[in-house]
């Protein structure tokens, strides 16, 4: 097994049998994680490839490119791996989270405003602890805002500083 090189993008191996870099997530594990955690079906990502650049940082790219490739960016940052609890990015949740069927927190207008402002709040909820999708209703549809961490009865906002707003 070789080491991860943080300066370039490497396509994820399809399955564990093809893994050559220690600790690297596989495509199968990534799509299965979204299915298990949020009920988003693996076919959603059929036209996308997944890449690692920087330890544990997984990127999603529409289409394909030669691997490895040394450029500044390839698609969108998607998921943080190489840690006990994998964590989706705000942008990934905003883009794909409409398809989620579980672990979605539907917030009221006031709760949504606090969430996007970066505030933590106590909210009763009987779902799983861990990373959840915070959503609210906009123009008649449920729209994902970002990633929350639900623990001990509290919804922590993980909206990055640069994406926080006071509405």
């Amino acid at each position, binding site marked *: 097994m070789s080491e991860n090189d943080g300066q370039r993008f490497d396509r994820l191996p399809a399955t564990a049998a093809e893994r050559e870099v220690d600790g690297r997530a596989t495509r199968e594990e990534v799509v299965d994680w979204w299915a298990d955690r949020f009920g988003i079906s693996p076919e959603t990502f059929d036209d996308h490839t997944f890449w690692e650049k920087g330890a544990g940082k997984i990127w999603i790219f529409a289409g394909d*490119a030669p691997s490895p*490739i040394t450029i*500044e960016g390839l*698609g*969108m940052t998607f998921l943080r791996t190489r840690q006990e609890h994998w964590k989706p*990015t705000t942008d990934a949740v905003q883009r794909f989270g409409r398809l989620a069927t579980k672990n979605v927190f539907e917030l009221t207008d006031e709760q949504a405003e606090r969430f996007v402002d970066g505030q933590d709040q106590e909210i009763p909820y009987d779902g799983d602890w861990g990373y959840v999708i915070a959503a609210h209703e*906009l123009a008649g549809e449920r*729209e994902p805002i970002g990633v929350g961490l639900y623990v001990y009865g509290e919804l922590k906002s993980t909206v990055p500083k640069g994406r926080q707003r006071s*509405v």
Partner: protein
Amino acid sequence: MEPFERYRDVVDDFEAFIDACRRSLPMAVRVNTLKATPEQVERAFDEAGVGYERADWHPHVVRVETDTPGATWPSIHGWVHGQEEVSTIPGTVLAPEPGDRVLDACAAPGSKATQLAAEMDDAGTLVANDNNLGRLSALRFNCERLGVTNVAVTNRDARNFSLKPFAAGGEHEGPQFDRVLVDAPCSCEGTIRKNPDALDGWSEDHVAGIAGVQKGILRRAIQVTRDGGQVVYSTCTFAPEENEAVLDHVLEREDCRLVDYDLALEHDDGLTEWRDTEFDPQVAKAKRVYPHQNDTGGFFTAKLEVSA
């Protein structure tokens, strides 16, 4: 406004032009069709009590009555992107399609790149390049916020943009592009309504210096486009040295021609002469948009086809 005196004889109704340049610019956003329809955006602005008006010339451009569109839900969700109306012209003229291979040679901070990605419906490859690393991080931020996944970001001087990083195994270079946008660095005269100090530091030497860079970037853009592919050249400035003269220079040296296109905004044709210089008559196919014509910023756009 002193530097604009030299346009007195080429701009119709010069006084109206100067008056418009003194007025501030209406706020506009572009609907990001990767995430929402214009109807959804309008409904969300209604819910937020924000007034708006759709531009009659472009289905995705909306003028909004707020100074802070960034603090509204449609922006937080990436349904809209704050973008000057005229800045949507080149992407609309290039009109890439899903599956195309597209280069945006001077892409940061990504207003036009994200528009190109939306026109491509996020399918096919969009290479977004800029030589300024700091500005590239703003581009990445905007692409991600707007949900773009088909963008590959490179940090090169566009004058010697390289196809090598995209070479498949065993090949020396990656594929050429179907369409290329050159939204060139320029003297920014047309942004005066947004930046009242846009003309600070203006000089003919400065203009001449930038024109040299523009020529190099446009030539390289043509070289990396496949035969029959298209290149759009745009600037947000009026100076003919940075517009028609650049086209004239490149038409003479690269295998390409200017082509006609439609634009549903009031505009002038490209200038076929400036001071004592006559340009290739094809440059009349380029279009100049002046601030007083449509109550917008100023802009210049030309469409080229690479000869087969």
